């Protein structure tokens, strides 16, 4: 069973539908017991970091995420879930979970692209990923594959070793993060067509061991 953590931020139906489509049993749940007994955990999130942290603390699910990490369960952070795993977020200078050293950083403004000129923030739409190191969840992802992004902040780990892919949008920012049994993606794999489904399938069969 795969638990999709429901801490009252956003609509989790699309994550569940995508995982079920791939043939893996999946449950959207806010119950700590169910999360801790799940084989693997998806940690999604949309919206503001402050609100998300508040909901996590209120529901006590911050501890469920921490405990899942400690137990070695494969964990997939998605979007805001890939930001609040850090020590803090520049979004209203929010104190976050501190599972990985680093922060969620805001795109600088004004933001310029070499070819595009002035860029809009949030970064909305399809963009590619540039692999920096191997990771099992990237198995079979092709150079031309793109993923669907919607965000104004991006993950910025302190340790370069945690950067699995980078993406270009005015700045070159980390878009897939890996640390032990935790992997986190800034984009929405559940909304990224066949490439996103492939990444989700890889996660659903990953044993949680970090790449070299």
């Amino acid at each position, binding site marked *: 069973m795969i638990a999709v953590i429901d801490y009252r931020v956003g609509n989790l139906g699309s994550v569940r539908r995508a995982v079920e489509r791939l043939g893996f049993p999946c449950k959207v749940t806010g119950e700590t017991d169910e999360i801790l007994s799940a084989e693997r955990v998806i940690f999604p999130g949309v919206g503001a970091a402050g609100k998300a942290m508040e909901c996590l603390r209120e529901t006590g699910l911050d501890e469920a995420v921490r405990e899942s990490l400690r137990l070695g369960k494969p964990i997939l952070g998605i979007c805001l879930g890939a930001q609040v795993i850090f020590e803090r977020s520049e979004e209203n200078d929010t104190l976050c979970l501190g599972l990985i050293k680093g922060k969620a950083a805001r795109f600088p403004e004004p933001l310029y692209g070499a070819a595009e000129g002035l860029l*809009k923030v949030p970064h909305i739409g399809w963009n590619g990923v540039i692999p920096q190191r191997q990771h099992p969840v990237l198995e079979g992802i092709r150079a031309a594959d793109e993923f669907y992004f919607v965000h104004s902040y991006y993950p910025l780990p302190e340790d370069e070793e945690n950067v699995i892919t980078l993406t270009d949008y005015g700045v070159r920012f980390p878009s897939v993060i890996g640390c032990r049994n935790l992997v986190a993606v800034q984009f929405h794999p559940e909304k990224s067509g066949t490439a996103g489904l492939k990444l989700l399938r890889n996660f659903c069969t990953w044993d949680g061991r970090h790449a070299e």
Partner: protein
Amino acid sequence: MLSKRIIPCLDVREGKTTKGIKFEENIDIGDPVEMARFYYEEGADEVAFYDITASSDRRDIMIDVVSRVAREIYIPFCVGGGIRTLEDMRAVLLAGAEKVSVNSAAVLNPRIIAEGAEVFGSQCIVLGMDVKKVAPSGRIPSGYEVVIDGGRTRMGRDALEWAKEAESLGAGEICLNSIDADGTQEGYEMTLTPLISENVGIPVIASGGAGNIDHIYDVLTRGKADAALVASVVHYGTHSIRQIKEELNRRGVKVRMAW
């Protein structure tokens, strides 16, 4: 580098896709779920549905369409048409849409944008605006007026001012539909589109008038649109989404080429 998006738009009436010219003479052209799946497999970056079902008590038909689409396609899709309240928004988002677009209701009650953004997040809220070219005046300095009811009711609001206001209220994207160009297949509106795109910080989706690839190329380059809505040009098989993207790619427009 971010890709420009190609978004097929399906007008849906009582569960069937239809297509009209300048919001009139609608004819049924297929099943929206099958069409969405077809476009998804052809490389569409997103799909837009516009519910033109006349009577509000038949809205559950659209909700059923949305939930079936959500099981077939794994890219974002947006649902608009008849969205008036937070409950309308909630219903389509829970059924599986990524975004909702508000149009007339937002012009009549702009607070719906702020409320929707507050509850569901700005990324969910697309402001759809229908505009008509008019003589520039003190009240309408851009020369484009916001209209509703498919162009039948003029709102006395300047299109550029409204776009800026919607952004400040929390709209995540703007879908700009030219009533003059809609269904003509003679090209997108090329004056207001870049004007709005350069004056707001959120993506602008151009809508209305695509008849060939040149039109799409123009609006994504000179027109400064972040995405192009396409309807007749793909529904009637003039071009496939794949052909459009291959040609745009050949001409140097960054589009997603792997799917």
